[in-house]
């Protein structure tokens, strides 16, 4: 959608701006061409469960970007808060919906506290927030391990016979089974509330988006804000929605392989949509406008009397809480708590995903997040397949996708800084 606003710019500029996205689209299409082993059913099953699992985390990155903090690799701290909450719930054998709600509440409290501290740190490392957010994630991981591996058992005594405690009575096990929800655990506590066939969800979402697009267009026009509308973008986006709806309807009618795709979790989906709505609405409040003002120019915001430090801390806190919830959604879907590994990568993966969607250090939207999550995970599924079919080694594909994650972040950030520096270069005139 952003590409359309840039119609007037030169094509080269457009390509540079969307370089990362273009590479990913090309790569995924290439994957489909060369690999024969991926069935449509398998691909969409994998993709939809990954998207439902990860979207919330990726969406948690938007607000810090708008508030000028850049990409918050520090969401791993939120993820750790979420895991801590889950660990507590698991320890006291809370489960089901009430256990899940407890997790959300406990995680929020922890994440608010951690987010506050992180926000203070970002204010002290102004201009270097991104490297600071990466390092603070590593730092927090040390503290997390101290608590989970050492404090539990040495400082707080726990029964060694508890299934999540290591046999020697010190520390939490590497992997903790979250117990399926029908046995009183947390696994699928959210996903299993209500499930719908994939194509039905697709149909509803596509039509819903279409209605939303039309309603926004009409409302803007009626309120005399027609300048916000763009007919070509309405036609393209509306067309895409219609096409998706048509594919879904066709699948239902003809009972095509798409009907074989795994069912989708409705409540999780609603939560993701809820977060999208929340993000849109908060940006329409005074607080949201302050985020944007601070993000656009700290100096101008300061001069106009906005408490810049406080605004940045609030943005970080919101992001951390959302990440904590996102991690809970992620883990209830995984079904096991990979105590010391589940959180370490999510910062980089989420950042890579939103960058793939077309975001940058200073620009991010819901479209970027959702589109990026879909594209990024498509690449993730396809990579081993490409490695397998081109070189006969799936491992190659796995290394390749790691390279893509790091490369995407490096390239996207590099281009952004390079362009900013070029713009700020002094000239004679």
């Amino acid at each position: 959608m952003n590409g359309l606003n840039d119609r007037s710019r030169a094509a080269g500029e457009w390509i540079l701006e969307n370089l990362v996205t273009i590479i990913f689209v090309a790569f995924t299409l290439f994957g489909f061409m060369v690999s024969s082993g991926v069935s449509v059913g398998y691909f969409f099953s994998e993709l939809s469960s990954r998207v439902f699992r990860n979207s919330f985390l990726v969406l948690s990155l938007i607000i810090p970007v708008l508030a000028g903090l850049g990409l918050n690799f520090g969401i791993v701290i939120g993820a750790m808060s979420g895991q801590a909450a889950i660990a507590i719930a698991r320890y006291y054998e809370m489960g089901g919906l009430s256990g899940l709600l407890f997790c959300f509440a406990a995680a929020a409290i922890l994440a608010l506290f951690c987010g506050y501290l992180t926000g203070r740190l970002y204010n002290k490392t102004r201009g270097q927030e991104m490297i600071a957010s990466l390092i603070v994630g590593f730092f927090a991981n040390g503290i997390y391990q101290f608590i989970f591996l050492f404090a539990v058992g040495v400082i707080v005594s726990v029964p060694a016979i508890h299934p999540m405690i290591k046999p020697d009575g010190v520390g939490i096990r590497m992997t903790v089974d979250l117990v399926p929800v029908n046995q009183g655990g947390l696994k699928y506590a959210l996903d299993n509330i209500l499930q719908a066939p994939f194509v039905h969800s697709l149909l509803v979402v596509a039509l819903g988006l279409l209605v939303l697009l039309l309603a926004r267009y009409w409302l803007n026009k009626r309120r005399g804000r027609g300048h916000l509308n763009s007919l070509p973008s309405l036609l393209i986006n509306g067309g895409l929605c219609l096409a998706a709806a048509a594919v879904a309807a066709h699948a239902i009618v003809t009972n095509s392989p798409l009907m074989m795709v795994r069912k989708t979790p409705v409540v999780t989906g609603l939560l993701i949509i809820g977060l999208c709505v929340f993000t849109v609405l908060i940006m329409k409040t005074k607080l949201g406008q302050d985020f944007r003002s601070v993000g656009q120019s700290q100096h101008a915001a300061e001069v106009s009397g906005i408490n810049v430090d406080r605004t940045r801390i609030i943005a970080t806190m919101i992001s951390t809480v959302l990440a904590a919830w996102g991690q809970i959604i992620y883990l209830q879907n995984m079904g096991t708590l990979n105590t010391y590994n589940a959180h370490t990568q999510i910062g980089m993966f989420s950042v890579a995903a939103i960058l793939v969607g077309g975001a940058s250090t200073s620009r991010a939207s819901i479209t970027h997040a959702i589109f990026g999550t879909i594209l990024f995970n498509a690449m993730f599924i396809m990579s081993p397949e490409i490695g397998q079919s081109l070189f006969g080694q799936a491992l190659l594909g796995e290394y390749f996708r790691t390279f893509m994650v790091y490369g995407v972040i490096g390239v996207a950030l590099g281009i952004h800084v390079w362009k900013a520096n070029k713009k700020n270069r002094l000239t004679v005139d």
Partner: protein
Amino acid sequence: MNNNLLQFRNISKSYYGNTVLSDISFTVQKGEIHALIGENGAGKSTLMNILFGMPVITGTGGYEGDVLIDGAKQGFKSPHEAMDAGIGMVHQEFMLIPGYTITENIKINREITYSNPVSKIFGEPLETLDTVAMDSDARKALDQLDMDIEEFTLVAGLPVGHMQFVEIAREIDKTGIKILVFDEPTAVLAESEAKNLLAAIKRLAAKGIGIIFISHRLDEIIEVADRVTILRDGEHVTTKNISDTNTVEIASLMIGRKVAVDRAHSETRKVSDEICLSIKNLHVGMPGERVRGIDLEIRRGEIVGIGGLAGQGKLGIANGIMGAYPARGEVYFRGKPLKLNDPRGAIRSGLGFVSEDRKGVGLLLNESIELNIAFTAMQVGNRFLKQAGPFRFQDDGAMRAHALEMIRELDIRCESPTQHVGSLSGGNQQKICVAKALTQNPDVLLVSEPTRGIDVGAKKLILDLLFRLNEEQGMTVIMTSSELAELRSICDRIVIICEGKVAGALPPDASDAEFGLMMSGSGMTQDKISTQGGAVHG
């Protein structure tokens, strides 16, 4: 007098015992356009800082005297208190967010909101923005200025003239705005934009807003203002009705001559007729000191002064020639073309530079005196080095010997040549800068603001040093300074820069009015004094 909207009564201010304002009193009335004029350092900005309760004032012990608004005494502790009391400022450099629409810029941190269910629980920050009301407010403010531009346009693409109007719209949108300060509002505007702006200012005044108009353009002041207050060296020279005065009088009052210029004299000086540095159509992109096409010729053995008000581009000239900022144009040095944007080439060809930014550009503050003095000569001229195989190392002995010689010759007061220059006084630091430049054995020395920020005694020493270098070694000196008096004390002629161009050249004994008019860019001087070749005074 009921019409006294704003009154300054016996305002004095000093920073750490250094008086910058003494006993200023004047009033601004309802609907009056009151011009404020003075050279750099005359105290205009300090006075405005006092009016706005800026931290720089409150944090340094406040001020003496009273500021009265509508007859009531005020003591603003912060700019926000001042704004709440109805005082607004239109800044010279815009405080606008380019990525915002005009409305958003006008309403920044004053957004109109309405409550929603969430905000009733969590409080005001979560109230929803009322974009419709904000747009209509912005529209009203723009209409008052006769701006027919759409309020939802992004500021990013606007011409500068419009940006200025958005700033003004923001100020007049604030409820109860009483006093509006314009700080050099026309400096960045094209002629037609400036005309529009002046007309808008007049309209605002007609609505009863009191306006303080700070400008160096005398013609504008005559055109738009009702009264003018002239400050000089922190003192209130006079306040006059515009109808009772003219540009010539304002100019001469602004420059004023406190003490008779103490000209340095010498019998042995020789100024040759040979042109040693010739500048043609030089443009320099130094932010805040842009040079927009300058022609200048410097004779060998001459001491040329470059003067002018701050921000007019006088500092850009030396920086442009020396490659510190991007430059375009032609410069010939001793008949040969000098490559621009090449600091190394400029130094190699025999130009020495003492920067106006002593601490930022001139020195490595945490390094020793000897290294600072030798640095450029070592890097560019390959001196003070010892060869060891393919590598060249610094020659401590040679550096020490040279530093000791310079310390003696320039009378640098220090403990030892290994002392860090950061711990020296301003005057001694400046001498290190000069020593560094002299170590390069330059033919021409470009010195910018040599006495900025150093005490009176040290000032004299520096000026004497420059004069002595010229007298004894025949060194050509190009001295750029904001202090006209010091230019007049040693220079053979003074070139005045205004708005990035040469306004003219004057002999040091020209009248105050001539200097004042020329610095203000008033057209009147153009036919009086020719641009080239002021008389050489020896």
